[in-house]
């Protein structure tokens, strides 16, 4: 960020400063976010959370980070050496690269790209490979299961995410994140596209693998999933990447749907006010994601998949279709608000109905080639869940 406010004149030095700024931002924000998550979870569960290291336990995560760095870097004997050791990087590097193009204020970003929105989506998509690599190379059944779940979930939820962002880019007429902010300087986009906003939040939760979508890393099912065999510095790289993704999706949401660093009613904000505004808007997202984590229960994998493919993706296409109508026929924005709001109501009704109905009888299908011992049995969903 320094590199942008002061023109240093040398492209290599400029890039180096940008990378250093991002590393500092990533580390500090991850430390803060972990502390915040522990504090929020403690509040929700009527505990105090970390209190001993530093004022209000602020230095607890720093102490934990030191401990993690000091830990031995273990690798299972049967693990596939290269894939195992490269997997944390395959998750970490794309996450880091996605931060490059995110504008923090009107003039602060490492790079302003014309295709910024597309870049963020494309680059974060590369992290899927890292989860698969970690799961496969650990030579552990739970890790493999977790890696598979991660890949299936991330790929599925990338579709509604991309489609809603397409809906936004259609209206804004640009994929440049700064221009999307400038476009919505009077009224932020979530007012006009509540359905798109909703789909974005759900898809972001799934992409972040946070509750209620933490199926790939669920402790009680796959004991940590792809990260099960990792320790020390490699494990903390996964952790750092996960909290940086939280930051990225929160920033992206606040830029695309909440109007980024601008005041809602279109008065130009000064630099410090811009920083404050984007921080507040991003914090809203982060607080929401953390709140949801401790308020909702985990979904089953089939519920997760059918919710994505049968509900979210059709609704995301509906939003694109509505935006197309408004753009082609020049209908007023109020039409968009009404129809998108109706779509949101429909989505809420679908969730309500799914929650309200009695659990269906589940039929257990015998494993293939399981021999005569495998027999069809029926259990009710509450019993197997």
């Amino acid at each position, binding site marked *: 960020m320094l590199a942008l406010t002061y023109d240093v004149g040398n492209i290599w030095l400029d890039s180096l400063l940008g990378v250093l700024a991002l590393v500092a931002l990533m580390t500090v924000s991850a430390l803060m976010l972990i502390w915040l998550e522990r504090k929020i979870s403690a509040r929700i569960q009527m505990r105090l959370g970390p209190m001993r290291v530093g004022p209000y336990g602020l230095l607890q995560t720093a102490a934990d980070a030191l401990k993690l760095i000091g830990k031995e870097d273990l690798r299972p004997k049967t693990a596939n050496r290269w*894939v195992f050791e490269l997997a944390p990087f395959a998750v970490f590097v794309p996450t880091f690269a996605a931060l490059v193009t995110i504008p923090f204020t009107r003039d602060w970003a490492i790079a302003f790209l014309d295709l910024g929105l597309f*870049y963020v989506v494309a680059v974060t*998509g590369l992290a899927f*490979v890292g989860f698969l*690599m970690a799961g496969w190379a650990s030579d552990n059944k739970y890790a*493999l299961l977790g*890696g598979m779940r991660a890949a299936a979930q991330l790929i599925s939820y990338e579709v509604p995410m991309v489609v809603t962002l397409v809906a936004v880019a259609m209206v804004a007429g640009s994929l440049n994140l700064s221009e999307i902010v400038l476009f919505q300087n009077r009224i932020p986009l979530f007012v006009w596209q509540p359905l798109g906003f909703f789909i974005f939040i759900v898809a972001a939760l799934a992409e972040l693998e946070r509750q209620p979508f933490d199926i790939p890393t669920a402790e009680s099912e796959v004991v940590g999933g792809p990260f099960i065999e990792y320790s020390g510095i490699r494990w903390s790289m996964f952790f750092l990447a996960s909290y940086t993704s939280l930051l990225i999706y929160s920033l992206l949401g606040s830029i695309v749907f909440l109007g980024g660093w601008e005041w809602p009613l279109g008065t130009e904000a000064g630099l410090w006010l811009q920083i404050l505004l984007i921080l507040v808007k991003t914090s809203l997202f982060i607080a929401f994601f953390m709140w949801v984590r401790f308020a909702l229960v985990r979904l089953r994998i089939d519920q997760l998949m059918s919710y994505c493919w049968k509900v979210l993706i059709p609704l995301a296409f509906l939003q694109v279709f509505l935006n197309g109508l408004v753009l082609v026929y020049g209908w007023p924005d109020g039409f968009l608000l009404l129809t998108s709001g109706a779509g949101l109501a429909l989505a809420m009704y679908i969730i309500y109905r799914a929650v309200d109905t009695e659990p269906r009888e589940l039929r257990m299908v015998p494993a293939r080639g399981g021999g005569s011992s495998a027999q069809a049995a029926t259990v009710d969903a509450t019993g197997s869940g």
Partner: protein
Amino acid sequence: MTVAQLIFYVIAALAVAGGLGVVLARNTVYAALFLILALLAVAGVYILLASEFLALVQVLIYAGAVTVLMLFALMLTRVGDLPETMTGAQWPLAAVVSSLLMGLLVTTVATSDWPGDADGTITRIPFEQLGEALFRQWAVPFEIASLVLLIALVGAIVLARDEDDDVEESE
């Protein structure tokens, strides 16, 4: 040698190394991972040619999604149980065919008269123009392509469902 040339040679070397890795690796998962390397390096070449949109599509679709699906399938099967998949009896034939294909492609690319690049400079096409061409001028071929994909999707579902029905009948 300019910096751009240096970067190009590094990227090209990575692409070639990735491609060789795909063909020569005995482990199918390694081959798929090398494929990601090759595809990413090609995306780098696209960026050097000032077509960022193409590069990002390459990263999103090929490196991010297609290879993940391939890895998904490969990792679910037990690679160690199937050594013959990478060293089948057909490999000399496959080598000949792919060398012929490569020769054909190289000669075609080298001898063709590419529009716009005659003066040796990079023509930069804004992606808006790409969208116009794709959805206005070539809308029908685009729709046909998506129809083909849809048919493939439906076909895959039909095949997968049939198998499940068999299981139920055998019970």
